């Protein structure tokens, strides 16, 4: 670790080290500290004007739209955990069997939406959901299921589900390839032995595969939670939080407070809220699932 022989002169050392660290501190740490400070002030234009103590936080705690947005974030996260990781797990298990053909093609095709920009996926699905020109309603009409046609993005009751679908659709492949990588580390002998003992199909998935890839699944869970706490692009494009605030999420709410209503200090306070909620959720997940490392795949 302490490799004196190759250690460069002090000034070279600093010359190489400082720019990167400074760049990072300037873009990540300074705004973070700034944000904590700004949240204690009221703003006049772009200037922190008057110290108001915890007034912004008091407003945040009693702001029903903020809590509503948080609930939306949590709903989306829950739907995505089930829809993305759950489905991805089933697909990965299917692709792990010998009977499925065209494995590489499936892998490449299912992963594909994951490389598209979320903005573009948002646009594509806005068109798909469109009442007269959308593929979804077209197929429902073609199948004589016109009664199922809904104003997908315009009804406050369903909009949160409608916007979760593209999110789930886009990233199933992402979780699928991660889970497949985890599964590939399980030895073939384990399955062979299980088959001799008469374990088959679903039982194999539930009693052998899942316990053996637990830490991979934990990685997926953490990625899924932190990813969906940041849901923003799709929703910004598809509904911009509407109708009303029914599909608003925390990041979107902070954005609209700051830029459409010009309340910079309050927007900042919401940012701190996002940070706290994310950290708490990560800790909770770690606490619930963590502590038990079961597979050797990720040490």
């Amino acid at each position, binding site marked *: 670790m302490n490799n004196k022989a190759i250690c460069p002169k002090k000034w070279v050392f600093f010359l190489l080290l400082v720019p990167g660290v400074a760049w990072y501190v300037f873009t*990540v740490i300074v705004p973070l500290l700034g944000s904590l400070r700004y949240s204690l002030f009221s703003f006049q234009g772009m200037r922190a004007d008057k110290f108001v103590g915890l007034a912004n936080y008091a407003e945040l705690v009693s702001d029903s739209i903020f809590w509503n947005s948080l609930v939306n974030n949590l709903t989306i996260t829950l739907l995505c955990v089930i829809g993305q990781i759950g489905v991805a797990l089933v697909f990965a298990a299917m692709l792990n069997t010998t009977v499925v053909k065209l494995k590489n093609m499936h892998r490449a095709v299912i992963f594909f939406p994951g490389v598209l920009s979320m*903005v573009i996926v948002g646009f594509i699905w806005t068109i798909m959901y469109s009442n007269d020109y959308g593929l979804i309603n077209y197929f429902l009409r073609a199948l004589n299921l016109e009664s199922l046609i809904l104003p997908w993005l315009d009804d406050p009751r369903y909009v949160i589900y409608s916007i979760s679908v593209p999110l789930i659709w886009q990233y199933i492949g992402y979780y699928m390839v991660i889970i497949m990588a985890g599964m590939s580390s399980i030895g073939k002998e384990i399955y062979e032995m299980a088959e001799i003992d008469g374990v088959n199909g679903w039982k194999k998935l539930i009693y052998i595969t899942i316990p053996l890839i637990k830490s991979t699944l934990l990685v997926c869970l953490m990625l899924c939670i932190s990813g969906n706490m940041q849901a923003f692009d799709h929703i910004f494009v598809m509904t911009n939080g509407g109708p009303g605030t029914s599909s608003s999420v925390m990041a979107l709410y902070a*954005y609209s407070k700051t830029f459409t209503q010009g309340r910079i200090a309050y927007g900042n306070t919401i940012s701190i809220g996002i940070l706290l909620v994310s950290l708490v959720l990560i800790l909770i997940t770690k606490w619930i699932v963590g502590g038990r490392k079961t597979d050797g795949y990720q040490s």
Partner: protein
Amino acid sequence: MGINLKKATGSFLMNGILILFSVSCISPIIWMIYSSLKTSPEFNRSIIALPEKLIFGNYVDAFRISHMGTYYGNTIFNAAISLVLVICISFVLAYFLSRFKFKGRNLIYFIILFGMLIPIHALLIPLFIQFKTLNMFNQRYTLIIPYVAFAMPFSIFLIESYLSGIPIDMEEAAVIDGCSFMRMLFTIVMPLCTPILTTAAILQLFTKWWNEFPFALVLINDEKLKTIPLGLMNFSSQYSTNYPMKMAALVLAILPVILIYIFFNRKIIEGMIAGAIKG
């Protein structure tokens, strides 16, 4: 017999489900591509029919009206500069973190790890205020600053774990033979790291730079500096009724991604897996 039948049904079902889902993953894109070759009235008559004859007018219009050329230029500019900077900076930092013990090493570690836990949306607004106050808002270099910074933690940890698998002997030998530190770093160690550097670059290209939206939205409002996702945003709101033209613009935006994906999907998927697991 019963077991065989059950197996056959199972295999039929599994293949069927996967094929159905795979089709659903690309059909919206394919629909968009061929619909963009229709005229607007033709599309309105039937949204699903194939075009009667291929019309590229939508593309010409979309390209002209949407300033797609400018957006392309800006996106490529940001991505290219960020790429070079992130790779160099992360490589150097990762090298120092993996090879030397020095004062402040733990502190650097801590802030980088902590930075990974911060959701970028928590920093959008404070960064906007900071940039606005320092007059760094809406400049050609503006987006490169957050793009590089937020790509650093991931890249540093990827490269560092790769470096820890490379024995130090070669570096020691080079230095003993009189090779300068800089030369050793960039002509001996860096080439050894090419595989992981490519992985890091690919990962960032697709997850951050090409598709990035929130920072561009908040930090840029000059038409001349807009990136592809941001530019599509106002194009789309202006021409919301002409679906084929809108689709043509979307296809233009994703065409390079599709082409790169067709040729490099294995490498891209591997990169994403590595990033997810190490990150």
